[in-house]
Every structure is written in structure tokens, then in C-alpha cells.
């Protein structure tokens, strides 16, 4: 195969930073390769991808040495417009890369820049939209699309330029399981049928590992491992050492002493049946019987101390913390219904996950629970009082909310001020204030960052600061809206473990919305599933993930370990 990307001794230090983000990287990618780039948050994955498509050094200030060559041309020396014909770059958040109102304009943008004749532009738009499965969407408003559709439109806008190389920076972070698998299937087809070279950075290793043919492991700005897929997952020690999630099935196979490291359910079933000779040895029984929490505890991040027992029970005592009664909501009188006749109760001490596909009303439900929105019908009783009767500042200490985007909450000059902001507003005595600040900083491992500006921190650190800032008010109810976005599993589990432990000790309630099955199975004792505004399930996560109807309607993806357990039990793939 011909080589089309060559990275030679590439180092890069962002302006204003003393430490380099990339350190002497050397790598080669052949035409038609599919590379999975793994590494903990902040290790330099995005910076590396940006260097390959020339955004670094063309749009970022900093110190660069070494070079990236694409088909022998140095990307630093050719204009970005020339590189853009060869390399397509799909960003993490669909909202931040689409700037047109209508699909057609968005998809045409690149070709218009290349001054293509209008007939050719039209032909390529139609072809690209067909390729991403959105052929009837040409005249649609982008705002009316789901996140998954938006990400496919972003991909179509790259495909029109017919790039030889596709770089994807955590492209499924904002998508539900269905949206993510559709996108990845599309990328697989491009790689297999059109021979497009693909480099994909992300944390969703289970979904991407079966598609790739090479794996790069990155840590602290270096590629510490560059191996073909069949060798990359043979020994998983390195994954554990680096705090990187390894494929769940490969991990289970290793634990059970299997010779191979399967990445798909079919392969895993084959390996288990082959290696056990048709018998059901004890290790299979272990897989069958392991609970979802076990699956996570022994799973990819088993080096994380797990101090928190899962499955916290609820404590209603006839006085629920939240009582949602026949709740219906629409944003405007003429707009469609977002939530429809929803009723449930939440007790003190519960940990509840809200799941469902993009746009099903998860965030809206969270906001309704604390009276930030007024129900169209029905009502929400929060701690014995109609939620809409609370003024937001009266909720301080009763309910806290952290959104997916931590930057909407961070407003102070230092991390310390940020965490102290809420307790100060509660007018605590100075000694109580100091105690609470120190305890919270300690609990969330922020002491060494206390004098730093929150905006200068990494995404994971900002998320941790935002949650700490909300937690410092010691609310009875903590609401987290998609806390997983942009976080690797190691940091996410650390954050959730600390938080859940602290809330459990105080018998406080945590409710989080998420697409992450692992997170739900590990931390929630109850899950609410939404489908187009309807509550379709309210019960234990294990039951939800075992019900094919729930899985389909709420766009869930049961963890592969769990699917394997069921498949081995039933004799067929779940």
C-alpha cells in the first residue's frame, strides 16, 4: 500500500504553555488504513489530528518542530485550502461546526470555496447526501435535525470534497447509541468501499475497535504504541497502566484465559465456545452471572478503586423528594409536545439515570424537576412544594444543576473562588466557609488547581470544577445533564465515584441524564427511559437493558459484556 501520511518528529507547544502537547511523534499511515487513536483526556489526540490537517500551525499560535507530510507535501507549507481537498476533519460537537441554516448551503460550502461549477456542486451534494443516508434532506433546516443527523450532515459536507483522508475527533460524543452506530457504519463503508484513510480519536473503543486495522495509544503527547489491531489488544496491561479503556470483550477474554482477543460479539461467542469445547466451564457461568456493576468493576478501568457500593436503595417514607404528577410540557403553545403525561416519584438517597435518544426531552425533564420551566399540564412537587413556586436562589442548598457544558457555569477568577461562590451566597460563617471549601477541593482533587483560572483547565478538570462548585452547596438533589461528554472513562468514573460516595453518605439524591450504559449500570439504582417525550420504563437498569423493546425504543446499547452474558446463556446473540 502507498503511504499517504507521514508524521516526522512532530512536536508542538501551544503559545503561553511551557510543556509541549505533542512530543517527537513519528508515525506512518498507509492509504486505506483505519487508525483508532486512543488516549486519556488531554493527552494530545485532538492536537495531533489538527496537526495532520494543517490547522496547526496555520490557525494556532505555538512552537512547532518536525513535520506532517501528506502525499509528500508538507501541510505546514501548503495553504489550508489545498490540504482541505485531501483531508476532511469531523469535529466532536455538531453544533460548533455547522454554520448554515439550510442543509444544502452547509454541504455546498466547501465546493463553493473550491470554485466548482454549480452543476458539479449540485451533483456532489446529491451524491454526498445519498451516501450519508439523508437524500431527502437537501432543503431541510439544520435546526430541525437530530444531533446524529447533524453529524451526518457535517460528514456529508466533507465528503463532497472527496477527501482521501478523514480525521474524526470524538465524533460520537454527543450522539445517542443509534446515532453513533449509524455514523460509524458510514465511516466503515467509506473506508472499505472508497478506500478512504480514516483516523478516529475517541473513547468509544468497543464500537470502533472492530472497524480499525491499526491502534495508536497516546499518552502525554507521545504515541506510546502503534500496532496492528490483532496485536494491539493481545496484552491489555498497557491500557490499564495508561488509564485507557480497553475493548470490553477482549478484557473478558483475557480474564478468562482465552487465547484470542475478540472485539465483536460473534467472535467472542465463537472463542468461548471453541475454547470450552462445547462445555460450559466455570468462567462462563461467571460471565453469565456477573451483574452489570461487576462488569464495569472488573472491566476496562478495574485499576480504579471502587469504594462505592452500587444499587443504593430509595427512601420514600411517604414523603418523596420529587413527585412528578401527570407532567406535560411544550415550549410554546403551538410547538410540539416535548414531554407527555409523565408521572413518577423520587426518594431521598436514590441515584437515577434518565436515558433516551437525542431530543427525547431529558434536559427538559431535569429543568422541570426544579421549576426552571413551567409545566404545560400537571405539576412537579419538590420537597413538598410546587417546584415553580421556588425562586431559583431559594433552591440553593436544595437542588443543584450542572450542565453538559461546564463553561456555562464557570464565572470566577480562580477555582477556589468558583467553589466558594455558592457557599458565600448562603452566608456561611467564615470558619464553615473555609471548611467547606477545603473539603470540596480535597474531595474533587482540585487543591493543586485552586489558584488557577477555570477557563485555562482541561475539559475534564473544568467539568470537575463545575460539579464541585454545585456540590459545595450540599444540595439535597443534584442534577447532572450528560456528565460524560468529552470525558474518558477513567476521569468520568473518578468524578462519579467521588460524587456518588459523598451524596450517599448524606442520603442525598443524584439524577443524571446520559447515553452511557456503563455509567447507568454502575451508578444508578433506577433508570427512567424516555421515548419521544413518553416515559416508557421506570425500574432497574439491569431489567431495562434486558428488555429488547426498551433497548430499541430508547436507543440503548447494552454493554458488550452484558450482551455476551445473555448470548451465552440463551445460545444466541442478544
Amino acid at each position: 500500500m502507498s503511504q499517504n501520511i507521514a508524521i516526522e518528529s512532530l512536536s508542538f507547544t501551544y503559545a503561553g504553555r511551557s510543556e509541549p502537547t505533542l512530543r517527537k511523534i513519528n508515525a506512518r499511515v498507509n492509504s486505506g488504513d483505519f487508525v483508532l487513536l486512543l488516549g486519556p483526556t488531554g493527552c494530545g489526540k485532538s492536537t495531533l489530528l489538527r496537526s495532520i490537517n494543517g490547522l496547526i500551525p496555520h490557525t494556532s499560535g505555538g512552537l512547532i518542530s518536525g513535520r506532517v507530510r501528506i502525499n509528500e507535501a508538507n501541510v505546514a507549507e501548503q495553504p489550508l485550502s489545498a490540504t482541505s481537498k485531501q483531508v476532511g476533519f469531523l469535529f466532536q460537537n455538531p453544533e460548533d461546526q455547522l454554520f448554515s441554516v439550510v442543509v444544502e448551503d452547509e454541504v455546498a460550502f466547501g465546493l463553493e470555496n473550491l470554485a466548482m461549477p454549480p452543476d458539479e456542486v449540485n451533483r456532489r451534494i446529491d451524491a454526498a447526501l445519498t451516501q450519508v443516508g439523508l437524500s431527502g434532506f437537501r432543503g431541510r433546516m439544520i435546526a430541525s435535525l437530530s444531533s446524529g443527523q447533524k453529524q451526518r450532515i457535517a460528514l456529508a459536507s466533507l465528503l463532497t470534497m472527496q477527501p482521501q483522508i478523514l480525521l474524526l475527533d470524538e465524533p460520537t460524543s454527543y450522539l445517542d447509541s443509534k446515532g453513533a452506530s449509524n455514523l460509524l457504519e458510514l465511516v466503515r463503508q467509506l473506508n472499505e468501499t472508497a478506500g478512504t484513510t480514516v483516523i478516529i480519536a475517541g473513547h468509544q473503543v468497543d464500537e470502533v475497535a472492530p472497524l480499525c486495522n491499526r491502534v495508536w495509544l497516546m499518552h502525554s503527547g507521545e504515541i506510546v504504541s502503534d500496532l496492528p489491531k490483532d496485536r494491539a489488544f493481545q496484552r491489555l496491561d498497557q491500557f490499564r497502566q495508561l488509564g485507557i479503556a480497553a475493548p470490553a470483550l477482549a478484557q473478558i477474554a483475557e480474564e478468562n484465559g482465552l487465547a484470542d482477543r475478540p472485539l465483536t460479539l460473534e467472535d467472542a461467542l465463537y472463542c468461548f465456545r471453541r475454547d470450552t469445547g462445547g462445555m460450559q466451564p466455570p468462567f462462563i457461568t461467571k460471565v453469565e452471572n456477573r451483574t452489570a456493576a461487576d462488569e464495569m468493576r472488573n472491566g476496562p478501568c478495574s485499576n480504579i478503586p471502587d469504594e462505592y457500593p452500587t444499587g443504593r436503595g430509595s427512601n420514600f417514607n411517604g414523603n418523596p423528594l420529587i413527585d412528578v404528577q401527570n407532567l406535560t410540557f411544550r415550549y410554546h403553545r403551538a410547538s410540539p409536545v416535548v414531554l407527555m403525561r409523565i408521572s413518577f416519584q423520587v426518594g431521598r438517597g436514590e441515584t437515577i439515570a434518565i436515558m433516551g435518544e437525542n431530543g427525547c426531552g431529558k434536559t427538559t425533564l431535569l429543568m422541570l424537576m426544579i421549576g426552571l420551566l413551567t409545566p404545560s399540564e400537571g405539576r412537579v412537587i419538590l420537597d413538598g412544594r410546587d417546584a415553580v413556586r421556588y425562586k431559583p436562589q431559594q433552591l440553593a442548598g436544595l437542588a443543584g444543576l450542572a450542565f453538559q457544558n461546564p463553561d456555562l457555569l464557570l464565572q470566577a477568577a480562580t477555582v477556589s473562588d468558583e467553589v466558594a461562590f455558592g457557599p458565600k451566597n448562603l452566608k456561611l460563617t467564615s470558619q464553615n466557609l473555609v471548611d467547606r471549601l477545603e473539603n470540596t477541593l480535597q474531595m474533587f482533587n482540585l487543591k493543586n488547581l485552586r489558584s488557577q483560572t477555570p477557563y485555562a483547565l482541561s475539559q475534564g478538570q473544568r467539568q470537575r470544577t463545575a460539579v464541585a462548585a454545585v456540590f459545595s452547596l450540599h444540595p439535597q438533589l443534584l442534577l447532572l445533564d450528560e456528565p460524560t461528554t468529552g470525558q474518558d472513562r477513567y476521569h468520568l468514573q473518578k468524578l462519579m465515584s467521588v460524587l456518588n460516595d459523598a451524596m450517599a453518605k448524606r442520603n442525598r439524591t443524584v439524577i443524571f441524564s446520559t447515553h452511557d450504559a456503563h455509567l447507568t449500570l454502575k451508578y444508578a439504582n433506577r433508570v427512567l427511559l424516555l421515548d419521544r417525550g413518553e416515559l416508557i420504563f421506570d425500574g432497574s437498569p439491569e431489567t431495562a437493558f434486558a428488555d429488547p423493546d426498551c433497548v430499541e425504543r430508547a436507543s440503548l446499547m447494552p454493554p458488550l459484556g452484558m450482551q455476551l452474558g445473555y448470548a451465552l446463556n440463551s445460545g444466541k446473540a442478544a
Partner: protein
Amino acid sequence: MSIVNLHPRTKIVILAVVGCLVVLLDGPISLAVCFLASTCLVARSRASWHQIRLLILVVLLGTWGLVYSQAIFYSEFPRTPIFTLINQDFPVIGEVTGGIRFYREGLLYGAVQSLRFNTTLAIGCFIVWTTPPRDLLVALVQLGVPYSLAFMVTTALRYIPLIGSEAVTVVRLQRLRGFRFLRLNPIRTFSGILNSLRPILMNNVRRATQLGEAVESRGFSPEVAAGNRTSLRALKMGRCDGSLMLLLLACLLSVFCLKTLYFLYANGLYYASWLRGAYTFTREML
């Protein structure tokens, strides 16, 4: 042809002409006619009730602010006090200011200013509410605005609602953390508002950076924008557009001529008896 479907270039010309007219005119009646005409445009724009409500709120607040401040701080002579807010023998404030009064001439001046402001505001809203950003972009480029600038303007317009909703979220999150924006201590109120601006600003800086990278990743650069770029969207002017533009330009030219003639007459530079009707009309109406 409905006025809503006019070519975006015509709508921009309407705004430019009316913008000049309201500067040239200073008669309350003619300005009120301009304002009424602009509200008719808004009424035809099929805007949502939410948008209309927002416009009414801004118009009322703007009018109140201008009228009130001008009526109090009017410093020209002659001026006729309507009523006294603070008497000059009132301790400290009265002694320092010599009394605060509400002047009729200031009130009229404020009303005239608010009519100017509200007319252009209403027409601006009409344009934004009735023109898809993609058409506005094409129109601006056709009017000779550099593509990069036109692209920035239309993209910024598209993000205004998003920034608005983010601002609401930021304020909510601060209030949920026990912060009260309105306090007796103005320094704390001011610092609270400043703190709220920080997340909004930082978010927008991040978004703008990301958007810039996305745009450049798809082959956009100032050189490309200035060069021979394809435009898939083609807009053509209709006969109505041409007629309306001519009418508006004729109107602007007429007002300009009448005001110039009146200026020459009023300053003793030129007088013609056959123009007496024009002088009277200009003084009374324009």
C-alpha cells in the same frame, strides 16, 4: 408580490433610505409616519408573538429612556418646565443641581429621537425576520460587501438566539447557586453582572474558534473569499424591487432638496417667492 418576498437587496436599500430619511427629518409628524410605516412592515413579517413582544418591549424601554432623559437633562433655551421633580431648595441634590425639572421641549426632543431609533429598529427586525440568512448573505455580497464580512455578519445573526439562550442559562445557574443580582450594594450587583458576562464571552470565544477552524478546514480563506468563489444560491431582482427602490430614492432625494432649500432660506442665503409653499411644507411637516 408581497413585501415580505422582496429581494433582500431591496430590503437593505429600504433600511438605508429610511436610515437617511430619519436623520434628515425632524418633524414629529413625518417621523411618526415613518415609524407607522415601519410597524406596518413588521405587521406583515409574520413574526411570532414572542418576537413581536420582544420588539414592543425594546421600543417601550427605548422610548421611555430617551424621553425621560431628554426631558430632564434638556439644556437648550427656551425651555418650559412642565413639573418639578426636585425643588432647588431641596437639601444637597437641589442645591447642587439648581433643581430638576421636566421640560416640554426636552420631552418633544426625546420623542423625536425615539421615533428615529424605533423606526430603524423596526425595519431591521423586519429584514432579519423575513430574510433567510443565506439570502441576506447573497444580497450583501451583491451590494459589494466583501464576502468575509458578509459571512461574519450573517453567521453572527444566526447565533444571536443561541447566545441569548446561553445568557439565560448562565443567569439561572448563578441564581441556583444562591446569587441575587439585585442588591442594595451596587458594587456587588455590578460585579455579579460582570461575572455573568464572563461565561457567555468565553463560550463565544470557544465557539468562534471552533467555527473558524471548521470553516478553514473546508477550504475557506480570505483569499478564496476575495477570489472567484461559486455561489449556488442565485437571487434575481423583480420589477417590484426596481420600482420600489426608485420610489424610495426619489423620496429621499425630494426630502433632501426640500431641506436644503429651507436651510438656504432660513439662513438668508436664497429665497424665491414661488417656493413659499415648499418652505411652509418643510417647516410644518418635515
